[in-house]
């Protein structure tokens, strides 16, 4: 098991190396630079001065090696958007806020989505199921920024219960978490329902009923445990997505998190930040899949790692 995990981690290093090369060449291939353009056309001399200031006057392969040399010493360079902050420092400042939002969202999404899915599976094809399905479809098809704006209109401007945005205390968390959680609730509810319905139809559940086990015991020991396996596959990747934030949610609710940087780094040609974020994302995804694979071992006795 330990060996398996170590091998996977070693493979990740190789993936990161290749990914960083591709990202580096791609981002430097886009026209424009990290400097302010102003209104006037720049003279050649100005352009040279600016390139030198950002260390962009060397060939791309040299810039890459310089970057890689820094990374080996855990130095990911200085952000161009916040010239007094390192990439690691900037992520360290903003990510906790996004994590806070993301974890609350995960809690709400699973807290609502899983029971909703189980209820609609158990009460299959009743009005409860139809209502849950309707809600899920709404959640699926409506982007979270639409929910965000609707919530601001309703709870801030009309009812005056909550502020329109900011990140100062619990009352500021409610609207963004709800808006952000809607789509995952829908997804979790749908997949939970499907998994549970399938598990309910399994032979061993019929057997359990036949031998007179209580309904609660059937649900917990025979249905849910088996339903968890497909759910883990689907829900695993949801988590890195939610804990890295959304530019829409963070912009609409003025949350000083990491979400916006996925986009602004590209617009501002903040090269060190772009590649820093790509690396972060890759590591998170890889770890999620690794953890998912390891979880299978515990959930499904048929899976064994050699």
């Amino acid at each position, binding site marked *: 098991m330990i060996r398996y995990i170590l091998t996977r981690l070693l493979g990740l290093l190789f993936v990161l190396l290749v990914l960083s090369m591709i990202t580096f060449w791609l981002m430097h291939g*886009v*026209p*424009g*630079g990290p*400097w*302010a*353009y*102003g*209104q*006037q*056309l*720049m003279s050649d*001399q*100005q352009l*040279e*001065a*600016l390139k030198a200031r950002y260390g962009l006057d060397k060939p791309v392969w040299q810039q890459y090696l310089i970057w890689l040399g820094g990374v080996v010493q855990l130095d990911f360079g200085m952000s*161009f958007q*916040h*010239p*007094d902050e390192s990439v690691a420092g900037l992520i360290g*400042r*903003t990510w906790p*806020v996004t994590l806070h939002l993301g974890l609350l969202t995960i*809690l*709400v999404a*699973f*807290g*609502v989505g*899983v*029971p909703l899915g189980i209820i609609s599976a158990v009460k299959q094809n009743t009005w409860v199921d139809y209502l849950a399905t309707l809600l899920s479809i709404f959640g699926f098809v409506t982007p979270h920024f639409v929910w965000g704006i609707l919530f*601001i*209109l309703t709870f*801030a*401007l009309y009812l*005056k*219960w*909550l*502020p*329109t*945005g*900011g*990140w100062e*205390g*619990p*009352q500021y*968390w*409610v609207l963004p*978490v*709800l808006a952000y959680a809607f789509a995952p609730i829908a997804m979790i509810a749908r997949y939970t329902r499907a998994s549970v319905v399938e598990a309910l139809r399994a032979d061993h559940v019929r057997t359990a009923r036949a031998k007179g086990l209580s309904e609660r*015991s059937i649900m*917990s020991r025979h249905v*849910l445990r088996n339903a968890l396996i497909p759910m883990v596959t689907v829900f695993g990747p949801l988590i890195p997505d939610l804990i890295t934030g959304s530019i829409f949610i963070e*912009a*609409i*609710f*003025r949350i*000083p*998190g990491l979400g916006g940087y996925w986009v602004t780094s590209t*617009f501002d040609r903040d090269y060190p930040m772009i590649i820093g974020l790509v690396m972060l994302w890759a590591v998170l995804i890889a770890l999620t899949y690794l953890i998912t694979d390891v979880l299978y071992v515990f959930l499904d006795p048929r899976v064994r790692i050699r």
Partner: protein
Amino acid sequence: MRRSYRLLAISLLAVLVLAACGAPAPAAPEAAAPVASGPVVNRLGITLPEDALPLEQQVFRYPSKEQKYMTWDASVYEENDGDNYGWPDSCVRPDKDFNPQPNVCESWSVSEDGKLWTFNLQQDKVWSDGVPLTANDFVFTFQRYARADYDFEWFYSMMGIKNWAQVVSGELPPEELGVKAVDDHTFTIETDYPVPYLIKIMADAWVVPQHIVKDRLDDGTWALKPENYVSAGPFVLQSYEKGKRLVFVANDKYTGPYPPMVDKVIVEFMEPEVRFAAYKNGELDAVGGGYTDDLPPSAMAEIMANPELKKELISWPNFITYYLFFDTWNPPFDNLKVRQAFSHAIDRDKIVNGPLQYQAVAAYTMNPPGFPGENVEGLKDVQAFDPELAKQLLAEAGYPNGEGFPKLTMYTREANPALTNAAEAIAAMLKENLNLTVEIQNLDYGSYMDALRAQKREKSGNFLFALVPYEFDFVDGSNMLSVWGGCENAGADLSQMPGRHTWYNQEYNNLLCEAGQLLNDEARRNELYQQAERILIEDVALVPIYHGIFNALVKPYVKGPMFEPNSKGQVTWNRFRFSSRESQIYMSSSTRE
């Protein structure tokens, strides 16, 4: 096992209940207004008007976007708000009619030949750390502006300061620059030729603290260190909460003609799309007034339909022109008839009365109404809407009914909703009136400027056609026309000619050059600018589409001299750079009329 499921179920239920309940609502943002007992005196010892709210409520909040730098000398295009009132102070300040008034520079004079300016500073001016502000700070300021990687260097290069280009390129040491300190309170500026509008640019001579910055080539990060929060202006930075806000407090060391009344100014960082809602919810005291789209067409419609909001609205014409430009050095736009056809095919009235209602007036000139040297009346018919004439001109150019005309892309630069609406309307009119297919493509700033630069430098013609704004920097006839030309360097290649676009006219350049050096005769200068603009418009270097109108909402309890009209009877909500705004307001217990 069973117990753990029950535990899970209970905790899930708890989460559900929590999510449903939400949390307590925030304190009512618009608190009732208690009247202060006795006069309110701020930390400078200034007594506020009788109706002023208590000092702790003298807080003014407005929205802005978080930027990279803090100060004017670091970057003009990427600095946070507060750059003008919370760090430096300027040599002179424009009044409501944009005429320069004494500020840090108490008085000035210019020599007979117009090439030597002398400025006398206020005697008792100190930085907020107590260090005296001297003429050497101004000398250092100009040395700092004269660096190649400064994004506003081009602006100060228009002052014609002796040895400017050589200092920028590093050929000469900064001490050789034509800005010299005579004594602690006097400095001089020597120019290569007379520059009649130099005093207007001195409104943007934002002094830099030499004792703090030290290195004139500093990359701009000096102002991000809290120990360097010094100011010569009416406010000083108290805190910078990254990603959230800037808090400025009144600078108790400030001496000068624009002392603050409010105690604090808070700049809340937020995206333009959410500002209107935050204003309505009482989280901001003012919104809008810039050309970021705080109040898009949808918000304007709501304001106009709501009598309360309408009372809080301030609208005034901005000196900004949105125009279409062409690559006149390459086909098909090298043909004047094609450009004329375009200029007659666009119905500006339809645009400004439709999607851009309340946000624009129709434009037929580069210089907007009320700008020095403008000739709106004289030129308004040159490019008048006339679809029949447009069709005929296009046919004469060899494209009857648009046949054979290449497929076009109209570029925009980080377009806001209003500009996107205008671009779509123009594309529709070109289709309807000339049967041309135009696709719209929005570019980010970097890609746009790179393409524009390449078009001029390489005369390549890949970037034919775009719709962009130009906003004034100082109120002088030379300013907006300089987009299209200026004094030529004899024998320079076309690609090195002044102006940013691929249009060239020698006569135009000569007129601009002559007017730009003419001292003490504003009437003659403006006459020359009118002649120059006629060439520009008749040759269809551009198709002006609209001049922007600025709209701002300001809560009715904000009062002060800011709301007194200018000589044209207009009340404006211009930013500090053009109005000294943050020094001209206070929070009142009554409402403005």
